């Protein structure tokens, strides 16, 4: 008891020191001179409450630990039906899900569909980064660079050469993959944490280049008026440009701006399904197994004759090409892109999605992407605290549940 009392006083004192100068006072400019304001009484009450909380939680830490171990953990595995029935249900469930995804947008508001499209972009990014971080175990902190490459590929090709969205989609993926290859080839020989820093630097470099290469990328002003995708040449606008036809004229229905939003949403659904399918196949191929094996034990893999550079490079390039895909679609959806969309925080958000969902787990990443995009929309009044919460969440998850919300499971057989 005495030890924990000492501990509690110490922890409370530390908390007070941490809070007093950063929370207790505030720098502000009065005209041109700098002044210091003391915080109001209500903020000090919060600080003291926090100090008290730390004190009590440290004082009763053993009791609290015992209490929390008694709380039964929900067994999510039990919710899943037996293997035999699951096999029968699964295709129906998937079919119902796809039909639901396709029908759903016609029944809700435009804003909801728009948000769903954004969520789908993040799902795509999350799945791509999941290959790199989750499966291959390579920490990529500059993932947003490949996203930027994809977005700018479409924007520039369509502005200068009049390429269509559909033609740019594979080009963007290929170009992003090429960038991934060029960066990855020399760097992947290095140890994991160096890779993290180098990719981080690369992400910043791409952003600085986009910002300063004003003659081509428009610098900080970005590129606007990017063409929207068409459906086999049918445009989704009120009036057709010369020599083309619009969607509503072709089908003889009234024009509504919602059509375009739903069309974009459907493209996103299509892209996400393609990405999920491809990654799912890849994971079951020898290369997918090699990714995970290499993540688990690099030395064992090398002694078994696996070429680590090729394996890592394939994961890195595939992840990059997925981001290129997503970037191309992002540019088409926004109609406007600027380097502001590709800052480090964006990489951190995608990383948080992968970590929160469970590294390697596709379902987990999809769920996490939904949570991470929909929650901030629902809690708009707390939007200032969004990044604070992201950071805290990453620390807390790593400490208590590093395997994520839905840990990854390998298909395996058990002897009974």
């Amino acid at each position, binding site marked *: 008891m005495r030890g924990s009392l000492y501990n509690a006083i110490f922890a409370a004192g*530390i908390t007070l020191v941490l809070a007093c*100068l950063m*929370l207790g006072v505030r720098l502000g400019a009065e005209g041109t001179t700098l002044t210091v304001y003391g915080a109001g009484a209500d903020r000090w009450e919060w600080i003291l409450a926090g100090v008290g909380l730390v004190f009590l939680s440290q004082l009763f830490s053993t009791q609290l630990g015992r209490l929390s171990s008694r709380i039964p953990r929900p067994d999510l595995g039990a919710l899943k039906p037996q293997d035999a029935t699951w096999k029968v249900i699964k295709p129906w469930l998937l079919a119902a899900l796809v039909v639901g995804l396709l029908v759903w947008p016609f029944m809700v508001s435009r804003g909801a569909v728009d948000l769903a499209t954004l969520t789908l972009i993040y799902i795509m990014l999350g799945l791509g980064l999941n290959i790199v971080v989750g499966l291959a175990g390579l920490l990529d902190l500059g993932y947003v660079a490949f996203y930027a490459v994809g977005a700018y590929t479409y924007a520039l090709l369509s502005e200068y050469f009049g390429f269509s969205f559909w033609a740019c989609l594979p080009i963007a993926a290929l170009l992003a993959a090429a960038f991934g290859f060029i960066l990855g080839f020399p760097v992947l020989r290095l140890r994991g944490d160096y890779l993290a820093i180098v990719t981080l630097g690369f992400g910043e470099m791409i952003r600085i280049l986009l910002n*300063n290469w004003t003659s081509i990328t428009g610098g900080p002003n970005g590129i606007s008026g990017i063409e929207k995708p068409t459906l086999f040449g049918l445009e989704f606008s009120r009036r057709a440009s010369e020599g083309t036809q619009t969607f509503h004229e072709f089908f003889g229905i009234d024009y509504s701006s919602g059509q375009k939003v739903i069309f974009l949403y459907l493209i996103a659904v299509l892209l996400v399904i393609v990405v999920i399918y491809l990654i799912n196949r890849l994971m079951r191929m020898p290369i997918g197994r090699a990714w995970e094996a290499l993540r688990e034990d690099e030395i064992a893999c090398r002694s078994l004759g696996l070429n680590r550079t090729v394996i890592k490079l394939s994961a890195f390039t595939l992840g990059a090409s997925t981001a290129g895909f997503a970037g191309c679609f992002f540019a088409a959806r926004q109609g406007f892109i600027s380097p502001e969309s590709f800052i480090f925080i964006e990489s951190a958000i995608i990383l948080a999605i992968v970590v929160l969902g469970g590294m390697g787990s596709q379902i987990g990443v999809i769920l996490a992407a939904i949570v991470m995009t929909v929650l901030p929309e629902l809690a708009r009044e707390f939007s200032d605290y969004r990044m604070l919460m992201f950071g805290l969440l990453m*620390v807390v998850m790593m400490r208590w549940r590093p395997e994520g919300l839905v840990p990854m499971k390998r298909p395996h057989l058990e002897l009974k």
Partner: protein
Amino acid sequence: MTEASLYLLQQIINGLTIGSTYALIAIGYTMVYGIIGMINFAHGEIYMIGSYVSFIVITGLLAMGSFALPLVLFIALLVAMLIASTYGWTVERVAYRPLRGSNRLIALISAIGMSIFLQNYVALSQGSRDVALAPLISGSVLELGSLETFEVTLSWMQLLIWVVTLVTMTALTLFISRSRMGRACRACAEDLGMTNLLGIDTNRIISLTFVIGAALAAIAGLLLGLYYGVINPFIGFMAGLKAFTAAVLGGIGSIPGAMLGGLILGVTEALTAAYFPSEYKDVVAFGLLVTILLFRPTGILGKPEVEKV
């Protein structure tokens, strides 16, 4: 001297000034990496907090008046070191120690989370806009050349940065090489497990490295804050990245390496900014990082690491 060489001299002076602060921050990275082998991603944020605390203390004391400027700066330095060390200690205790021994990736992600958290914590509590302090130290020590061609100046502020850095580095070197604690630090860097077996509380030593690193970062925070005169909650990111580059450049894990790396990086940056468009000076820093990692991953003074099964 010709105009071109005067210009070059001025850039080298500027580069050494910035470089010595990079070196101060880089020591925090290198010491932590040398002992527990992790990149303390939140270190740049500690530097930023040091900057903020020193600004708060300086403004507060100057508003009270009746203090001499050197005393104000000295108190600000002490308070900033104290608070930043407490932050450094807490970050290690809360976010890193429970994860020690687990996968490297997990600790690194936790560190990134901590960095994002601290950045936004300061942005929320102090406001996310730039905070500017009127220059406190003006005038120059030395002027070379004439006004018509080009004048090289070494300002008092730059001299202050050099002197403080030099004193700090000397003190740190003496501490590491002479004191008992310093010897324990070196032992930990050599072999953590063995040091523990020999009866040294390694947890305490690890905490100590975080505290020392944070205190040095706070010194850099005060100096750079005064030098530039403007701070905001997001300066830690870039400064941290640069300092990490400096640590890798000199050989991560090596303290003299971090000092050397900081100076080289500062001068390189100043020279690029002088002869090329200055927007590209950050690109150069990262380009330098990638190049070193490719051709000499152990850095200038680093020892090659042996991979153990």
